[in-house]
């Protein structure tokens, strides 16, 4: 049972995740045909409420909703909206509610903002990234991409490399991968791995090289360049030397092992250009699969007024 809102990967069981991925697989075939639109969510309205920058998540949600015939409103909290006049998050939420939106896809710089929103409105709320907390739809599309290649997620060895402490992608992915039975290792400088990570069920290490030959998936996180000023790692070059995936490191990986990245990439820092363009890299598959996974979620959550029954 997915529930009315999707706020965190914590709320999804292996059964729920499998249902979302199976539905996405059926929906992806629709995107291969000349007429890509389905009438399923005709008359429903979905609002993208983005308080932070986004390219793929916002476009992907917009396209997913449109492919299912829902109406879409894009709201960016920038100089063109009333947020610039000081309208609060709560008043914005009530305004959307008054306009009768059925679902709000929210991205916000503060952890927990989607939870707060879910308490204010009757609409379905989907977390599209909140602070350093979670980004569940990214985790779902990553699980879909991994399952597509390996058929089974259970037992796979996955390393998530880089800035774990600031990464909502890492938090959601660790939860999703562990729920599906993968073995997860978090790799990065000690300064970028949060203390509480010990309780997440993943192994923690600071060296990438010894892991490489056993990995099925090497998942690289974006180095948030703005963090450099916080002195959490010495320099971008040193980061690339120790944790960046270049051709030499990639050559140690198994023949069928995959390289993943949630985007946007810093080529030459966490990932070398030739790695991002190699056949192992499924970075563009991740983007394409995001559309199918988001269509699946919108269908399963908005398909009925009462939410989904198993």
């Amino acid at each position, binding site marked *: 049972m997915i529930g009315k809102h999707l706020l965190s990967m914590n709320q999804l069981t292996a059964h729920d995740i499998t*249902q979302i991925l*199976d*539905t996405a697989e*059926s*929906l992806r*075939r*629709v995107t291969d*045909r*000349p*007429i890509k*639109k*389905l*009438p*399923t969510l005709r008359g429903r309205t979905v609002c993208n409420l983005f308080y932070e920058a986004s390219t793929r998540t916002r476009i992907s949600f917009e396209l997913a909703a449109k492919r*299912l015939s829902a109406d879409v409103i894009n709201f960016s909290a920038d100089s063109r909206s009333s947020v610039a006049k000081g309208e609060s998050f709560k008043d914005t939420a009530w305004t959307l509610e008054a306009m009768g939106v059925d679902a709000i896809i929210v991205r916000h710089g503060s952890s927990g903002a989607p939870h707060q929103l879910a308490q204010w409105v009757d609409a379905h709320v989907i977390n599209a990234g909140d602070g350093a907390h979670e980004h569940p739809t990214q985790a779902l599309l990553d699980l879909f991409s991994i399952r597509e290649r390996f058929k089974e997620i259970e037992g796979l060895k996955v390393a998530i490399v880089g800035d774990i402490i600031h990464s909502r992608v890492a938090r959601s992915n660790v939860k999703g991968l562990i729920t599906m039975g993968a073995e997860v290792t978090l790799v990065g400088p000690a300064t970028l791995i949060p203390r509480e990570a010990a309780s997440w069920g993943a192994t923690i290490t600071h060296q990438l090289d010894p892991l490489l030959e056993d990995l099925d998936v090497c998942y690289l996180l974006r180095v948030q360049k703005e963090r450099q000023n916080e002195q959490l790692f010495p320099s971008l070059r040193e980061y690339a030397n120790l944790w960046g995936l270049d051709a030499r490191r990639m050559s140690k990986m198994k023949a069928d092992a995959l390289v993943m990245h949630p985007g946007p990439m810093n080529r030459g820092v966490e990932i070398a250009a030739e790695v991002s363009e190699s056949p192992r890299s499924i970075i563009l598959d991740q983007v394409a699969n995001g559309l199918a996974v988001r269509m699946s979620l919108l*269908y*399963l959550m908005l*398909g*009925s*007024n*009462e939410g*989904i*029954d198993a």
Partner: protein
Amino acid sequence: MARAPERDFALKARVMGADDVRRALTRVSHEIVERNKGTDDLVIVGIRTRGAPLADRIATAIAGFEGVDLPSGALDVTLYRDDVALRGPRSLEATTVPGDIDGRIVVLVDDVLFTGRTIRAAFDAVLDMGRPRAIRLAVLVDRGHRELPIRADHVGKNLPTSAEEVVQVHLEEIDGEDAVLIGEHR
């Protein structure tokens, strides 16, 4: 069609057995070819769930007596239904329609024709995949009570029912036996 779960179904009569189903499908298969004056451009497409194995059987039967390989496929119309919001989202199954349907004759196959709403959804699903020259409809059982102006071209058995009754089709591939049962909600 809205089929009550097994536990809510009180059997009143077994209206077709395995032999009846086989004979009806054989006749329908011949009718499809006769109506089409041959097998040119025919594509047999079953509506999931139970239309799919029926379509395969019809395609196999036609291949048997006409000596040609006939394309067959299956259609999941869930995303095109007009009652998604009422019934809630259901798991999706694969839609596998062979090749290009532009200019071909698509024969839709379903187990029970009742309100006609499933067929309406199937029209939209097929038309989103291309522009067939014609769509025809073959059903194992027509039980009446249409809510839309739709009729079948080929019918295995006309079964007069009351609106309260429930018609269940069982198929070897899914249920382990071939039978058509009539009953009511308990």
